């Protein structure tokens, strides 16, 4: 079945069911997305996104179940699902399949409010609806909105500086193939600061999982939002991750994603810089083995003046894996003194690996400084030789150099504990040992090691 046919089926299922059970706050948004869906599917049928079509077909191939009634997965959250970074004293939230759990609800610092969308106070309904609004014409994205049964609403009050990072742990646990539509809405009000860490885990690594996660961020004037994402799921997982962010005057957005373990991953970043003097930093790394696919798509639109953006994406491809990077910087008319740089570096470490890169610039304004660089190559043979001549086995030398290759992405992470952790995770990943957290719940780790044996 092609992706377009699958899209049609999801629409039929929802229609036959008389709609999904969506939170009251976003009813309008969901209705609107559902109404626009047939046309979007039709358009997709005629013109599937060029680079994406074959992968979309693969992503949607399994027969996923959808949780239309929003049945809550009950779980002893604190005990079995804690997956922390050592010494990372974080505020914990958990997404079990598509059920929202907020164990940290009682311990929130002043200025930070987190609600499940279903229990959202009336006063925030309009804000949540505005945040959740889906303006794209992508049928996959519209289906995600249509299937929204719950989500996180995170609000950082004006001037509040939240030191403690907020961690949202995504856990998948199901015996049948499941399509989970996860939504995280973040509104950082004026001069506020927040750090959010997302991580993906699968407790049932044999089960096919379509993890569709949408993160929508609005960064008001002078706010600072940091978003980190670590994916450590299973090869049976297909992930579609979308970050849609709007940046206002002098706001600061830092995003770093790490793809360590999974099946097919497509991370999409749609950043809209509307304010003046904003700063954007996007980075990502992917280490792919087996037949994994890692695909990063960036659309960064500069509308404001005096803005600066930096992008750094690195991929190391082993075995039969495929990597893709599509980066687009659009500088609109009037976005004067924009300074945008995009870098994509790729390493092919196996004869069967493949890398597809399309870094693009669309500039409609003359007072800009924009550049992009993309390279695809392999480790320096001389460096490998040097290390071997000093008694380091080739395999280890390769690993060390690959780790060094990735290190500048990891170094982009501003908070120390996570940075250290990611260095270790990358090393472990390259070692071939389990990448799961040491402190993680037993269930999680045993399952992954079982799968590896």
């Amino acid at each position, binding site marked *: 079945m092609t992706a377009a046919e699958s899209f049609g089926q999801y629409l039929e299922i929802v229609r036959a069911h008389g709609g999904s059970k969506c939170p009251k706050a976003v009813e309008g948004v969901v209705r609107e997305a559902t109404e626009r869906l047939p046309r979007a599917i039709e358009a997709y049928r005629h013109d599937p996104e060029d680079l994406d079509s074959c992968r979309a077909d693969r992503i949607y191939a399994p027969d996923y179940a959808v949780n239309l009634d929003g049945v809550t997965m009950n779980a002893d959250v604190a005990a079995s699902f804690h997956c922390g970074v050592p010494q990372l004293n974080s505020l914990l939230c958990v997404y079990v399949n598509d059920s929202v759990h907020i164990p940290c609800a009682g311990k929130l610092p002043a200025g930070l409010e987190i609600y499940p969308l279903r229990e959202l106070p009336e006063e925030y309904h309009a804000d949540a609806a505005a945040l959740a609004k889906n303006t794209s014409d992508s049928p996959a994205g519209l289906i995600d909105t249509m299937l929204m049964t719950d989500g996180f609403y995170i609000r950082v009050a004006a001037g509040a500086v939240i030191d403690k990072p907020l961690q949202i742990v995504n856990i998948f646990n199901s015996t049948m193939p499941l399509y989970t539509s996860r939504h995280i809405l973040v509104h950082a009000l004026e001069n506020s600061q927040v750090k959010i860490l997302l991580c993906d885990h699968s407790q049932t690594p044999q089960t096919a999982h379509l993890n569709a996660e949408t993160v929508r961020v609005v960064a008001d004037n002078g706010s600072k939002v940091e978003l980190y994402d670590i994916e450590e799921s299973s090869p049976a997982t297909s992930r579609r991750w979308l970050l849609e962010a709007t940046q206002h005057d002098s706001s600061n957005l830092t995003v770093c994603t790490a793809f360590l373990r999974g099946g097919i991953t497509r991370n999409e970043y749609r950043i809209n810089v509307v304010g003046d003097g904003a700063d954007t930093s996007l980075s990502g790394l992917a280490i792919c083995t087996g037949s994994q696919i890692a695909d990063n798509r960036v659309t960064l639109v500069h509308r404001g003046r005096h803005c600066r953006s930096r992008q750094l994406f690195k991929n190391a491809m082993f075995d039969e894996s495929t990597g893709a990077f599509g980066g687009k910087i659009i500088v609109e*008319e009037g976005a004067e003194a924009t300074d945008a740089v995009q870098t994509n570096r*790729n390493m*092919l*470490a*196996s*004869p*069967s*690996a*493949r*890398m*597809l*890169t*399309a*870094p*693009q*610039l*669309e*500039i*409609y*304004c*003359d*007072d*800009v*400084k*924009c*550049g*992009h*660089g*993309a*390279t*695809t*190559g*392999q480790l320096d043979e001389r460096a490998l030789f040097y290390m071997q001549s000093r008694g380091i086995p080739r395999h280890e030398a390769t690993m060390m150099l690959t780790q060094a290759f990735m290190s500048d992405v990891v170094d982009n992470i501003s908070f120390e504990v996570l940075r250290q952790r990611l260095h270790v995770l990358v090393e472990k990943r390259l070692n071939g040992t389990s990448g799961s957290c040491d402190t993680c719940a037993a269930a999680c780790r045993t399952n992954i090691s079982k799968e590896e044996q």
Partner: protein
Amino acid sequence: MKENKDITEKEKREEREIISDATGGEYKYGFTSDIDTDIIPPGLSEDVVRHISAVKGEPEWLLDFRLKAYRHWLTLEPPTWAHLTIPPIDFNAISYYAAPTKKNTPKSMDEVDPELVNTFNRLGIPLEEQKVLSGMAVDAVMDSVSVKTTHREALAERGIIFCSISEAVREYPDLVRKYLGKVVSYRDNFYAALNSAVFSDGSFVYIPKGVRCPMELSTYFRINASGTGQFERTLIVADDDSYVSYLEGCTAPMRDENQLHAAIVEIIVEDRAEVKYSTVQNWYAGDAQGRGGIYNFVTKRGLCRGDYSKLSWTQVETGSAITWKYPSCILAGEGATGEFYSVAVTNRLQQADTGTKMIHIGSNTRSTIVSKGISAGHSQNSYRGMVKVDKKAEGCRNYTQCDSLLLSPTCGAHTFPVIDVANSTAVVEHEATTSKISEDQIFYCNQRGIPTEEAVALIVNGYAKEVMNKLPMEFAVEAQKLLEITLEGSVG
């Protein structure tokens, strides 16, 4: 303090004037020569295709080729993926054949229509002079039929064939049949199919084994009759160990209605042979309101079939209302080399979507891409390129650099590269920058007594130099002149 402010104001005003001067410059080559042309009525059908073939006295196989292409063309839609706004083209409003009525091939310059000679003289291409002074063989294409071919004998001595493609079809049918459509199939794209169906004329070059062509081969294309599309077809074959440098220059007179130009250039490079293909394109770009101008939709591709073969494309694109052009290299032979050097200038409402494809199929193949875009006025200038390394191609190397210079706040400069690498031994690099002329540089020049206008000209020339240096001497001068005319050497 106020004084300083006044000075900056003044500078800004000067800058604006310079820009408007540059953008307001009228097309120097806009004139129409009154030569009688034999035009068939507008419209396209199988009959028209048969008519063209019959007029040219073509053999059966070529008519079949045309008809196959025409039938395939009917199934296609014009491509829309380019970053261009193309007004709908009524393909039935175009006349597909125009030939100067003088059918007898002139034996000397005296026999050539004086009006035509005058036309070329005004363009700065005096045939006589060029023949004598620069030692170039000029095959001038006036609309669709070659009217004059020079230096034929000198070339023939070495076994080099340089003639119009219709002549080649008559005299060397086996050669043409062997190579025609082998690099750019009629199934390739919409405009390639159209060209294959109705191509009127063009050049054919064959360089035999081991021969180094003693002179630069040159063709000037000129669209002359109003409302005629020109469908050139060029075929260049360089046999083992040969070398040729081919120049293509284009200027067209001023027209109100848009004219379509859909050409095909096919190049085949055998073992250790080298082909250098240079283009200076200065077709009418339309007036300041965007009226008129040529639509330049060209398919150019070379097949480096032989081991250690080399193909080098150099282009200076200053004209045309819309340019859609991607000279490409298929690097199939072991150790083959492909090069692409381009300067694309757009001004006023011009649109250009140009670039290259480097397809690495053979091992140890190398390619270099240097693209320089300059946009001014309200124009849109895009680089679109693809570098593909096949799974079996070991040790390939590509270096791509594409820079864009923005000269007005209303223009656009875009970069759309695609890099697809399926072999782990490949090293592929891509680098792109977009910026306006740095104020530091202008300030530095001003400070040393160079006025802003000259400083800008200096910087633009320096910026384009890397590509200009790749042009043959004779062309570099003209290209330099064109750059100056297009931007009046003084954009700011």
